[in-house]
């Protein structure tokens, strides 16, 4: 045995901190168009190179290049852009509303909009999503009412979840959007169960599971991968690597030693690492994964490389732990700007149309906010009656809750 010096605990540190610029070379990017597109029935382990590279379609000039070009219908891309703009506009206004104390809490998805919106456009409407709190884009892309969303945020008496949840914890079965949990990671393995159920019933629907880089450390992430691999569940396992949990960077979640996509390969699951700020790459890889799942070839894990443009939540101040201008310096840019550039470059949209679209979505959001606020809010006391608090604990209200409701009302 060789003589060794004393051991030392290695604690990962981000390359940037307040006052010190981030060195983003750790991201290990591939050039647009450079990564191969495996056959849809490729064996999981044969994706090991793709899990270590970065699938990108849009080059710096906004042109689609390489084997992953989805050759998408321009109208679909325009719809995607609109959903992204709407989501961003929605988020921006809700952050302000929180600051104005109209709503109690908020979480925006700034910078990550392409990922869930691109994926949803690659899914069938009745495929089921198991989102985190940062996939509001799914609801917006699937046409859930902005007013309903805002009533949830305001916790008023039109809140579809009756004031039970903090803001942003939406639920809409009709829009294939599973109830968001406050507990990280739990939905990931549920998505696999839902997908297994679809397979058990000989259905053709698939599930889409969502998790953040930080939450991949949770137990349910491992269960999800194990069950998905063992039963070849028809599920897309999305990891949104936006570089940060709350104040801890992705290295604390294991991102220093391997890509997050590598977890998939290690579990015998086909895995891709994809530029999450490249709408076309999102669309193309999501389609690939959806087709793979639907055709019985099993799950795909996708690591989306992106950046959390805003604070973790309205309770957070990121300038305490990362450089203030980090997002501006993030090498993969802004997904909205990049898709816009592509649509302008290909002539699918004009500058004017872009401006108009922005106006339209802003107006829509403003109008929705006006309407939603007219129904009152938690702050104004217009909430679901306290007596409703005892409903939905069980299907029927059991005797002890009938008694407690009576006491509460007394």
């Amino acid at each position: 045995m060789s003589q060794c010096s004393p051991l030392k605990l290695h604690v990962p540190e981000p390359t940037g901190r307040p006052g010190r610029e981030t060195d983003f070379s750790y991201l290990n990017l591939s050039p647009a168009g450079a990564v191969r597109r495996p056959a849809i029935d490729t064996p999981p382990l044969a994706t090991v190179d793709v899990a270590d590279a970065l699938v990108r379609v849009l080059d710096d000039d906004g042109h689609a290049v390489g084997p992953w070009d989805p050759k998408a219908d321009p109208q679909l891309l325009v719809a995607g852009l609109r959903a992204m703009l709407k989501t961003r506009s929605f988020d921006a206004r809700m952050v302000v509303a929180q600051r104005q104390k109209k709503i109690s809490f908020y979480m925006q998805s700034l910078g990550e909009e392409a990922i869930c919106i691109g994926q949803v456009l690659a899914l069938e409407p009745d495929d089921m999503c198991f989102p985190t709190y940062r996939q509001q884009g799914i609801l917006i892309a699937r046409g859930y009412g902005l007013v309903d969303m805002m009533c949830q945020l305001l916790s008023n008496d039109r809140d579809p979840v009756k004031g039970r949840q903090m803001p942003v914890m939406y639920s809409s079965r009709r829009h294939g959007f599973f109830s968001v949990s406050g507990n990280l990671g739990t939905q990931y393995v549920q998505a696999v169960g839902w997908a297994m159920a679809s397979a058990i019933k000989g259905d053709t629907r698939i599930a889409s599971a969502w998790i953040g880089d930080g939450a991949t450390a949770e137990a349910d992430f491992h269960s999800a991968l194990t069950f998905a691999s063992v039963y070849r569940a028809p599920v897309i396992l999305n990891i949104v690597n936006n570089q940060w949990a709350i104040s801890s960077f992705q290295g604390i979640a294991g991102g220093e030693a391997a890509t997050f996509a590598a977890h998939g390969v290690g579990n015998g699951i086909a895995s891709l690492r994809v530029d999450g700020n490249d709408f076309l790459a999102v669309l193309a890889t999501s389609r690939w994964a959806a087709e793979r799942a639907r055709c019985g070839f099993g799950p795909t894990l996708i690591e989306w490389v992106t950046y959390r443009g805003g604070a973790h939540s309205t309770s957070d101040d990121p300038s305490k732990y990362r450089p203030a201008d980090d997002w501006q310096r993030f090498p993969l840019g802004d997904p909205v700007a990049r898709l816009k550039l592509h649509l302008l470059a290909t002539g699918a949209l004009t500058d004017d149309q872009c401006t108009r679209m922005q106006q339209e979505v802003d107006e829509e959001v403003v109008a929705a906010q006006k309407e939603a606020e007219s129904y009152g809010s938690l702050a104004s006391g217009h909430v679901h009656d306290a007596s409703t608090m005892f409903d939905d604990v069980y299907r029927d209200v059991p005797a002890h809750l009938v008694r407690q409701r009576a006491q509460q009302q007394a």
Partner: protein
Amino acid sequence: MASMTMIQAIRSALDVMLERDDNVVIFGQDVGFFGGVFRCTDGLQKKYGTSRVFDTPIAEGGIVGVAVGMAAYGLRPVAEIQFADYFYPAYDQLVSEAARVRYRSAGDFTAPITVRMPCGGGIYGGQTHSQSPEALLTHVCGLRTVMPSNPYDAKGLLIASIECDDPVIFLEPKRIYNGPFDGHHDKPVVPWTGVPQSEVPDGHYTVPLESAAIFRPGTALTVLTYGTMVWVAEAAVRETGIDAEIIDLRSLWPMDLDTVVDSVTKTGRCVIVHEATRTSGFGAELTALVQEHCFFHLEAPIERVTGWDTPYPHAQEWAYFPGPERVGAALRRVMETA
């Protein structure tokens, strides 16, 4: 109608439900080809195929997690945890998800799952094959917790649990899988044959949830208990000659409070018996409920006879187990209180 063991009755319930409802699926560790370490699912994979009855990885959290997802799809999953002692890794999915999803989504999504787990000691299983964690479940609003004491109830309650739209934890006292056990571990093992509660119909029937059974009517005092301890209590009553009313709770929570209150109001005395550790055990809640609802009828302090506040030891098992002597002594003490 045949005499069944509790294992056979449970298997029969699963068989009936697999047959009646395509949405029922069964999974857990070793439940497939092998039929379960306690044989409760023996033959079911062969009969219904691998997509209805199958083995899972050893991941209790994963088992309950996929069950919740399947339920969101529309299935009625029946998951087995091999021993209740191993359900802790699934606790988060039970508490934060199965129990909460209806509430937090205001009914948009529900979790009609049934989670079966063998519980209790008396088989020299030591601290990791003997636990009775019911109090950790009764504290969780949104869950239902059920524990049968005999084959007839086991089948009827299990069918009711699977048909219930709420998540149900179905605790199976493994010591009475093959026969009623009165706590006299040094006496020969008694089989279920000949015990009236082992007469079990072949087909579908239910024993309603939230209904207790008066296992033995009596006037002198009330014994509140469930699972294996019903039989231990009966032995204690027999041996002391005290005319106690034994109530088998069957559904621990939500529970049938009326039957309890009526009985204690009548007898004025109450002993609570469970195998789980004492502190913050379900007996504490029963004590609180009885004293809240029957205070002015109580002629003596309510006594709890329970497992000690230690892990379940292997070698000292019978010093730990609350057997008929300890129960009998409590009955006498409560009767002797003026």
